[in-house]
């Protein structure tokens, strides 16, 4: 009996290790492919320059990186108040019919493919404005960011122990102040994490930008003009027929991977820092 149990234990451990290995292989090979092909071209000039015509040496994605930051920033201005606000509302009073309706809408919105969100932004922003713009791209990104933000905020706020709320109310602090200054304050680490993850996700999207912000060969900081983004630049490099642009696509992909990776790491630190101290 004991022998059989130990054999079964060993076999299962082996199977688990194998499964982990199988899962890691694609990830490792993907990283290897991007790094090995992208690293040679990842020079300061590439990160700080703007695209050059085919045949010209050099050229870079600097304006695309700036454009991505610009649009993600604008999108956050839209999405964070709405998403975090909705999450707080859902956690605090979301058990009524209004809360159920909001939750349903958020779930549906979360399932909409990102390219459809791009079409929505095209119809709502691009057509009335008459041209492509960073604003339109930001609106599409914001639509993408709101549902996960609302959901994560709700969950983190719900994690705050009810005893803290009671402590605050028992001191004669009104309910709304208690919500903001005790409950949300305690959940802030988690909410920060959710914001960084949403930003990372939006920064990596291409589809919603293709017909909203389009692209731009030049540096641009004006929200009402077409704007380059790292992802759309990678897309354009990659579908071109030119060898040198393919190489730039790989380098751009590596830059994007690093950017998103850093955001994810920051998110993890924010989570560990605040939540670790926040509840015991």
């Amino acid at each position: 009996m004991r022998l059989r149990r130990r054999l079964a234990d060993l076999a299962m451990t082996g199977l688990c290790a194998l499964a982990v290995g199988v899962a890691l292989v694609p990830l490792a090979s993907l990283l290897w492919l991007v790094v090995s092909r992208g690293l040679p071209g990842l020079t300061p000039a590439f990160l700080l320059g703007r695209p050059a015509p085919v045949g010209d040496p050099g050229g870079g994605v600097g304006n695309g990186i700036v454009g991505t930051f610009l649009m993600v920033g604008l999108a956050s201005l839209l999405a964070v108040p709405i998403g975090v606000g909705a999450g707080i509302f859902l956690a605090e009073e979301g058990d009524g019919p209004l809360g159920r309706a909001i939750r349903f809408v958020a779930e549906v919105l979360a399932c909409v493919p990102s390219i459809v969100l791009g079409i929505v932004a095209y119809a709502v922003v691009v057509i009335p404005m008459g041209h492509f713009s960073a604003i339109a791209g930001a609106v599409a990104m914001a639509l993408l960011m709101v549902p996960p933000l609302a959901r994560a905020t709700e969950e983190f706020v719900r994690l705050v122990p009810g005893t803290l709320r009671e402590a605050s109310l028992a001191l004669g602090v009104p309910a709304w102040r208690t919500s903001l200054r005790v409950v949300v304050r305690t959940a802030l680490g988690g909410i920060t994490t959710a914001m960084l993850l949403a930003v990372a996700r939006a920064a990596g999207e291409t589809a919603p930008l293709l017909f909203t912000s389009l692209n731009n060969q030049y540096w641009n900081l004006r929200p009402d003009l077409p704007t380059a983004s790292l992802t759309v630049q990678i897309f354009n490099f990659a579908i071109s027929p030119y060898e040198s642009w393919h190489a730039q696509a790989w380098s751009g992909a590596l830059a994007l991977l690093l950017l998103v990776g850093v955001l994810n790491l920051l998110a993890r630190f924010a989570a560990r820092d605040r939540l670790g101290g926040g509840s015991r």
Partner: protein
Amino acid sequence: MSAAPQASPTATKISVERLDAWYGATHAVRGVSLEIPDRAVTALIGPSGCGKSTFLRCLNRMHELLPSARAEGRVLLDGEDLLSGEVDPVDLRRRVGMVFQRPNPFPTLSIRDNVIAGFKLNGMRGGRAETVERCLRQAALWDEVKDRLGASPLSLSGGQQQRLCIARALAVEPEVLLMDEPASALDPIATARLEELIHELKERYTIVLVTHNLQQAARTSDQTAFFYMGELAEAGRTEQIFTNPRERRTEDYVTGKFG
């Protein structure tokens, strides 16, 4: 360290008249009438689930946090009916403070800011250094934390955290302090300190204390109320309840025959 017998009858701080409380269909408090004397300790004892916490929460309307809960009857604080619509629960809770079963300091605030949280969270000034020191001294915690007021309250022991919560409740200068099993998460030494503290605090505050520890009730309180299945079975001078109860149920409970 037994409580000195109350020589003269003291004034009534809270007068509860025929209080009923429900959670949905559960009738948790049934027609309870009780006079709570000023500047004295009233202990609430009784078997688990008999309605002590519910009764206590009605005294500062914390029961309203549960949508299903409701209370009927009259609770007069200095003659004013708390349950009537005219009293603002926020103002009321500044007058009637509460200390909970488990210590619940605010983890995002420092020890100092926890003490003056009642001011800070309300966006008021007034939480000055003197207030912090005075309340921490009153709660017998000052010497242990005076060198690390900026630290997180989570770095304190459970007993210290509970005294911090008492300091926090004292800072808003309440008239009444409700304590729901404040020692249940504490070791015997911390419990003894807490009992000493309660003894000192009753000079200035009216205290209502829920406890499962009968010796604690006997040691600290002037009046004891015995709850049984939602009703107030018997209330009287602590000495009388423990040595010469009128009711059979009380006698069985205080002598450990059930509960």
